């Protein structure tokens, strides 16, 4: 799959001017808080319209401001795990998980559903409402919901941010498997270089709305031992 993005967009004083082509199976978006990662992902999903530019997947144009093309979000078949989980509050977990299948009129696939709920360890939560979930549980349900809609591209906006490391260790390989076996291509947003290294086949580094580097894992900052922090402790005591 080939994802091509060449857009510009202004949000208040903030300007995005980004162009890249994610040829690999997982395109990593890496950048500091406020770099424009979520905004870019929103444009790919069709939730935010670029002021100018094009977005395409393979030969299909999703956005082309010059040609006035804008495929609406619901026709893009792009799954999105939001930074804030955005579960539907009036539906229980089971219904949340089932929502994409219903909307896309897909056949019921109990095997797939069981596999996803097992992996995400949310089988025990199916009857609960989102308000009764912990932060991490919510994020896992959101991940399951996006997967079960069988998207052709998956956008993951810091999906593991609120997960403990044990769970990360469990889920990340699954994402790798999705990438390799199910060959669901992804755009993966994270500020964790380790995760990026694991998952991304090509990496887009963003700073202040602009692409400042593009390539393989080598563009990432060097990993610091034990979560990058110890290097700085001197200054703090």
């Amino acid at each position, binding site marked *: 799959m080939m994802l091509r993005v060449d857009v510009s967009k202004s949000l208040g004083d903030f300007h995005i001017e980004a162009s890249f082509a994610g040829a690999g199976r997982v395109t990593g978006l890496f950048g500091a808080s406020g770099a424009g990662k979520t905004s870019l992902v929103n444009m790919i*999903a*069709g*939730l935010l319209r670029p002021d100018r530019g094009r977005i395409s997947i393979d030969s299909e144009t999703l956005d082309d401001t010059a040609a006035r093309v804008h495929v*609406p*979000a*619901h026709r*893009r*078949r*792009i*799954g*999105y795990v*939001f930074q*804030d989980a*955005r579960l*539907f*509050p*009036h539906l229980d977990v089971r219904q949340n998980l089932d*929502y*994409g299948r219903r*909307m*896309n009129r897909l056949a019921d696939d109990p095997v797939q559903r069981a596999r996803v709920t097992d992996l995400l360890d949310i089988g025990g939560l199916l009857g609960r*409402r*989102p*308000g*009764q979930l912990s932060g991490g549980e919510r994020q896992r349900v959101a991940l399951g*919901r*996006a997967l079960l*809609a069988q998207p052709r591209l998956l956008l993951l906006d810091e999906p593991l941010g609120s997960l403990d490391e044990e769970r990360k260790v469990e889920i990340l390989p699954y994402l790798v498997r999705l990438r390799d076996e199910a060959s669901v291509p992804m755009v993966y947003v994270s500020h964790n270089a380790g995760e990026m290294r694991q998952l991304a086949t090509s990496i887009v580094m963003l700073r202040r709305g602009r692409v400042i580097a593009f390539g393989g894992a080598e563009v990432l900052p060097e990993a610091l031992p034990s979560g990058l922090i110890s290097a700085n402790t001197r200054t703090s005591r």
Partner: protein
Amino acid sequence: MFDISPTEWIAIQLSLRVAAVATLVATPLGIAVAWLLARRDFWGKSLLDALVHLPLVLPPVVTGYLLLLTFGRRGLVGAWLSDHLGVVFAFRWTGAALACGIMAFPLLVRPIRLSIEAVDRRMEQAAATLGAAPWRVFSTITLRLAMPGVLAGMVLGFAKAIGEFGATITFVSNIPGETQTISSAVYSLIQTPDGDPAAMRLVAVSIVIALAALVASEWFARRALQRLHGN
């Protein structure tokens, strides 16, 4: 005290039918208008908004008179409807329902609109990324999240329809068994020198009806709210 005469019984039944039909028919329409007002920008939006509120602003007698001019046998719309669809409002209970529905309309639309405006757009976006077309987003997400408003609108509308009488009596007059609702019966009783006790009896009945509607709606609303606040 509660020995209700047969005519009064008929008026009570009629009131229930008129108010129920008015509310049920007006609700989908009200939802559509509320959605337009909450979510769309179009030419003439203020006009539509004003039109919706009009029955509230005008003395009911005026609304009834305008209904007569429009939906009466000789009215523009009324003549067309009766010629082409065989629908007649004049002097029929359907006319009473029309009048009540129109009088209740602003009360119905506002709360629904309010609730639609309060719906978190991000939920709708999430639904769209899951493949829901706009109208399915509306029916599965927006409308469900706006349910408390729909219920509130229906209660206000129903209560108003039970109490309405000015527009109704002007439009379809007061024909026992056909268009005489509780309210118009009460009205004539109040105008009769010794009618007060009978009027108060009927007033008690309409309070009971409204109370029942209220309790039912509270129950639904509580459920809807619990759903939304997730507990």
